[in-house]
């Protein structure tokens, strides 16, 4: 490449450790100007860390950065901005109660007084939004905007600072497929203007669709950089996890039984009074996995929380094996739900599922701590808890197998195993699972999936919520898609595909293929379920 133009970005030997965690290890890449470069890798692979270093958010322990061929020191974000780098973070960096305009000028004001900067910015903003199809109301408050809009503000922020290099960290995680399409159009537009885009994602489909080149990261290291045109999803997946990946879960056909969970017209408001569930109805039978697909933030979390007893509902009914659950009163709490046989693997294990500063053995009783087996009179029977913990740790191959370690000292995958062990081993009537494999490596994913399938095969009902369509497609016996607090429709995994689910996730129902309840019923009948 000696005779081509200088790379827009060149990283040489970047390393970064957080305490004992080596997040980046001797990483080098080059990105040519006017291209879209993808970076993929599993959770925790070090993608965000690497880009944060490029943006001056963290300082690398070692290595150097070259921008447009010149060695550039980037001690802070100011320097990155000066070097023409803009970044859209995974979690937006916007001041919620400021207007769009204020957010855009923040840090790039001209002069001491605001008035002049705001005036200028308003003009420039109009220009930019025309140029790139980035329409937003400059006077709207951020908190009143949807995530898609907020993302546009972030992009505008970068453009307003005249960024030539735009880094986007997992921009589509919060978008519907349609919004994602719009984003990609914008990115192509930017590319046509000669700008360089770095796109972090772990969705292979997106990489294939839009990038020119792609780098793969694994465990803090850069495993390969290839031209997108010269690779395939399978190859990338293999690079990502370091071995051949079985993208399908082996499982027997379902043998659905009686209805275990019957949800009717469920409604929820959040603290601000915004409706999160607008009348959701479905049921889950014994011996089947119902998968709930949807873009994050469309009510799935709230659904799990209501069923798990973590929040009250504002309307509707829920029946468990024919008996109504209390949704508002004093018996609507998680403890009562557990007593009724509902186990719950929560979406966020670190925030909800575990007490990070408790020892593993204390966590193994968490939520079940009033089980008589763990108690002796008014005192807790810590020995019994520890014995049980050791048994579960052994059965689920949690590493390190040390029940005296604090939960925070286990890796993400092992933390998840502790939670899954705790919940599945109770042999529940109904298992609620949220994002079971988020941030979990492929080996643990297989193991956890097997456990879920085994529970189903033992005739238990499973409600699975995941934003990963692959996971939904491979685990579920039936799929419901949520959009904006409603169930858009139910599908069977064999007769649908990602495209169709994607449309439903965006709130678009195909008119020529109405919601397939009848088809589902027929399918149930075929597989011998006793429909009631």
């Amino acid at each position, binding site marked *: 490449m000696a005779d081509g133009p200088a790379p827009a970005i060149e990283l040489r030997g970047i390393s970064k450790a957080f305490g004992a965690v080596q997040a980046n290890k001797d990483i080098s890449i080059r990105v040519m100007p006017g291209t879209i470069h993808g970076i993929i890798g599993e959770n925790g692979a070090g993608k965000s860390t690497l880009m*944060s270093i490029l943006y*001056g958010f963290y300082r690398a322990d070692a290595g150097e950065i070259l921008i447009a061929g010149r060695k550039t020191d980037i001690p802070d*974000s100011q320097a990155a901005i000066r070097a023409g780098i803009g970044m859209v973070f995974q979690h937006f*960096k916007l*001041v919620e109660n400021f207007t769009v305009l204020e957010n855009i000028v923040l*840090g790039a004001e001209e002069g001491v007084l*605001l008035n002049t900067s705001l005036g200028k910015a308003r003009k420039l903003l109009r220009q930019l939004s025309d140029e790139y199809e980035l329409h937003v109301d400059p006077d709207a408050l951020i908190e009143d905007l949807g995530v898609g809009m907020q993302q546009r503000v972030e992009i505008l922020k970068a453009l307003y600072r005249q960024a030539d290099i735009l880094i986007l960290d997992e921009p589509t995680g919060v978008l519907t497929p349609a919004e994602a399409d719009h984003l990609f159009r914008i990115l192509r537009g930017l590319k046509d203007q000669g700008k360089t885009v770095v796109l972090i994602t772990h969705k292979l489909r997106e990489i294939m669709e839009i990038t020119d080149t792609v780098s793969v990261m694994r465990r803090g290291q850069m495993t390969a950089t290839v031209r997108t045109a010269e690779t395939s999803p399978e190859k990338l997946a293999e690079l990502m996890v370091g071995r051949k990946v079985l993208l399908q879960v082996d499982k027997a056909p379902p043998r659905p039984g009686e209805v275990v969970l019957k949800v009717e017209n469920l409604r929820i408001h959040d603290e601000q009074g915004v409706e999160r569930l607008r009348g959701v109805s479905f049921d889950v039978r014994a011996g089947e996995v119902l998968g709930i697909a949807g873009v994050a933030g469309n009510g799935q979390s709230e659904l799990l929380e209501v069923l798990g007893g973590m929040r009250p509902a504002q309307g509707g009914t829920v029946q468990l094996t024919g008996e109504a659950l209390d949704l508002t009163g004093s018996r609507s709490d998680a403890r009562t739900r557990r007593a009724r046989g509902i186990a719950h693997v929560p979406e966020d294990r670190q925030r909800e599922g575990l007490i990070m500063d408790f020892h593993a053995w204390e966590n193994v009783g968490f939520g079940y701590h009033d089980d008589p087996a763990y108690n002796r009179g008014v005192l807790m029977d810590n020995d019994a808890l520890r014995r049980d913990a050791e048994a579960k740790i052994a059965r689920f191959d949690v590493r390190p197998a040390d029940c005296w370690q604090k939960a925070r000292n286990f890796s993400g995958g092992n933390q998840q195993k502790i939670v899954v062990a705790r919940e599945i081993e109770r042999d529940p009537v109904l298992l609620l699972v949220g994002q079971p494999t988020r941030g979990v490596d492929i080996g643990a994913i297989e193991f956890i999936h097997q456990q879920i399938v085994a529970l189903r095969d033992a005739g238990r009902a499973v409600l699975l919520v995941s934003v990963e369509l692959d996971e939904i497609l491979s685990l579920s016996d039936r799929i419901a898609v949520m959009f904006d607090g409603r169930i858009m429709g139910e599908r069977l995994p064999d007769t649908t595909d990602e495209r169709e689910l994607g449309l439903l996730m965006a709130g678009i129902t195909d008119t020529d293929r109405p919601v397939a309840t009848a088809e589902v019923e027929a399918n149930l009948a075929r597989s011998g379920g006793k429909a009631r």
Partner: protein
Amino acid sequence: MDFLTVVQILDSTVRLATPLLLACLAGLFSERAGVVDIGLEGKMLIAAFFSAAVAYSTGSVWLGLLAGVAASMVFGVIHGLASITFRGDQLISGVALNFLASGMTVLIAQDWFAQGGRTPALDGAARFSSIDLPGAGALRDVPFIGPIYDDLISGHTILVYVAVLMVPLSWYVLFRTRFGLRLRAVGENPGAVDTAGISVVRLRYSAVLICGFLCGLAGAYLATGLAAGFVKDMTAGRGYIALAALIFAKWRPWYALGACLLFGLLESIGNRYQSLDLLGLQIPSQFMQALPYILTVVILAGFVGKATPPRAGGTPYVKEK
């Protein structure tokens, strides 16, 4: 209650509200930048002491003012070190600084003046004297306007006028300047400020310093304007009342003026009447004294409109993805 009494009570209100207002604005800057400061009390106290001590020793109230402000700003820096640099607990730091001030002032006062923890009384140029606004004397006898202008508006020390001017100034700085935009942003979402290439640490330190500066004025006013010298624990909970006023004011400068005047009025009435006869109900002075605190609890409970503090308040900023 005749008209002149009302003017008198209001006049006293203005004087008593001044230290509250300065401290309240101090807290406003700090908390708007996301640094919670329950150490207003301690800063005022240390400033009160140093301003009185230096004013006494040098005979110049201005040097005293300078010393008081400097001492308060040093406390601000300690608070900054604890809560910004070392990411400690802001509440605990504030509590500690309040104690430190209460102990230190007496200790040093005893060492310097050996008068049981107070400074000698100040007089002459070692105190702020009241300023007569132009025309105050001439207007005195004009009915209604006269007493209001002469008693209520004119005849306060310079710091009273400074405090009042601080209100529009604070408003302007916070809502009309680049610095204010950044300051407010850092109290709402420091991550946004950091990624915009502005130093969170520098912004927060400047907020903490402004807070120290204003608390310094408040303390100096107590010792060299309102009183004539320092006595042990002379702030007497005013820092906490200022904090209460800040919540009352929903972290806004103009509201702060109103809240501080209200609390000043309560104090003034409580001073004047040992017990208040309200519609045949005897209200003991202890109730009047406790009223600002009770009101604050009522406000906090959300019975009188919800007060939403700056979102990032109280939490140290740690970079994260």
